[in-house]
């Protein structure tokens, strides 16, 4: 057994923190991302509810947030975090910047998934007399499902990367552990183990995503 130089509980706590941050921000971010993506797809000029004002505003918001590096975003929105959570630091406080970061990212990925849905299917839905909600529920979502699952997979892996920086606001997590105990103390075995743990995380998530996407596309 290699000596990691930290108590094993610390590793477990870090893993827990990472899972917590990823899971909660992914859930909230997916819902927000889905709403934004659907709005973008509907209001785009070839969409079924073209609205230039809504499309251009939302599109710019997504672009602006996406162009800010996560570490800067985190510090930049601290007042918002304070207003929402009551504190600027800690694992829960890290959720706010994570959601703000991941929602527009997922929105972009979801938007592409929806745009892959054949225009003809939407036209068929309209010809059938489907309402807008029915078009989204019975046509857009089911036909884009496989692609949406892959988008969530990519988003999740992006989130794991972002949580490593959550240490900057005291968020903790596996990445933070590797930086503070591994890198700054030059504890090579610890860095190595955390990297291996992250690789396994990512591999598992990608495989699960691929499997679910495959299942939703093939019968």
């Amino acid at each position: 057994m290699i000596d990691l130089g930290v108590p094993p509980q610390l590793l477990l706590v870090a893993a827990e923190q990472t899972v917590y941050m990823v899971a909660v921000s992914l859930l909230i971010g997916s819902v927000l991302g889905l709403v934004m993506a659907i709005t973008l797809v509907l209001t785009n000029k070839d969409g079924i509810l073209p609205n230039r004002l809504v499309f251009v505003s939302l599109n710019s918001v997504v672009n602006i947030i996406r162009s800010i590096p996560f570490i800067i975003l985190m510090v930049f929105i601290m007042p918002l975090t304070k207003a929402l959570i009551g504190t600027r630091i800690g694992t829960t406080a890290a959720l706010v910047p994570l959601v703000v970061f991941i929602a527009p990212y997922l929105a972009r990925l979801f938007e592409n998934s929806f745009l892959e849905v054949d225009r003809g299917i939407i036209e068929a839905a309209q010809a059938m007399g489907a309402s807008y909600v029915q078009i989204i529920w019975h046509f857009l979502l089911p036909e884009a499902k496989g692609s949406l699952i892959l988008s969530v997979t990519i988003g999740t892996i992006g989130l794991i990367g972002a949580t490593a920086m959550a240490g900057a606001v005291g968020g903790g997590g596996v990445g933070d552990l590797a930086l503070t105990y591994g890198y700054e103390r030059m504890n090579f075995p610890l860095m190595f183990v955390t990297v291996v743990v992250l690789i396994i995380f990512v591999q598992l998530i990608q495989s699960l995503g691929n499997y679910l996407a495959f299942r939703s596309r093939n019968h």
Partner: protein
Amino acid sequence: MISIEKVSKKFTSRGQEVKALDEVSLTINDGDIFGIIGFSGAGKSTLLRMINALEKPESGSVTVNNVEVSSLSYRALRPVRHEIGMIFQQFNLLNTRTVYENIALPCIMAHQNRQEVKRKVSDLLSYVGLADKAQSYPDQLSGGQKQRVGIARALATSPSILLCDEATSALDPDTSSSILQLLRKINRELEITIVFVTHDINVIKKICNKVAVMESGRVIEQGDVVEVFSNPQHALTRKFVATVIPEDIPENLQKTLKAETAPCSLIKIRLADRQTTRPLIWEINKRFDVCSNVLFASVTEIGGIVLSVMIIRYSGDPEVIKKVKDFFTKNSIDWQELTL
């Protein structure tokens, strides 16, 4: 009844304005199988989409069963669209849903009772001949079977009108014929008016009773299929008709004829319906002292009516040949003299 009045629509492509429809007027009666033919870009699909208001006109009006669809809101259009089924060239089925679910979807969206939906879908499946495919997915079906699912789905809301957008263009000739037969059966048995957009004159010939020919956003010719086929006015119509009813003397024969010097006349006659059963050539040979030689003949059935075209060479005394021509005119036979 569908009535389209002076409908115009412009599109902008690459900064240039294109008139997709230019003051188009059409009337489609209940029970018709109305064909709209033209090359791609003629505006025929845009015109078809005006009927269920997938496209809205910039000017003019579209009225379906006494409802002006061109001025309705999206919400108000929904019940009207249940009255108008539509099928597509690329079928546009949901690939993630079974055949059963695809056909049931319009009923479910219309909040029909589950039991009723079940009965209706199985009736429709056997009507289109796919009773054993209920649990298959679209990508397990052939093109013809997919179109049958498309047809069943379009019929699920019990429409009175069925719009077909190049519905047989992605299918091989045999499959295409069987789909056309199914559509004709639907027209007769379920009394559904069919509007069929196509670039294939064979479709018009096989099932339509009315036809409109379109070119650059205009309807250049329309009427009963038999009339349009037997006497096409416009160059484009003639071109379309010639592909199903050839009217040319074979080239080799033309060469031989050109080499001959004896006085003769080449006459093309068109016979329709009852005229085709008249022993015309026999009558002429008996009455006049001319030599008749049939160089070309074709007989086609369109919309249940027989149409025959013949090119006959009459040789002999020019005076007598003139009498033959007078005979045609007197008997109201459509004829014209050809030059090689």
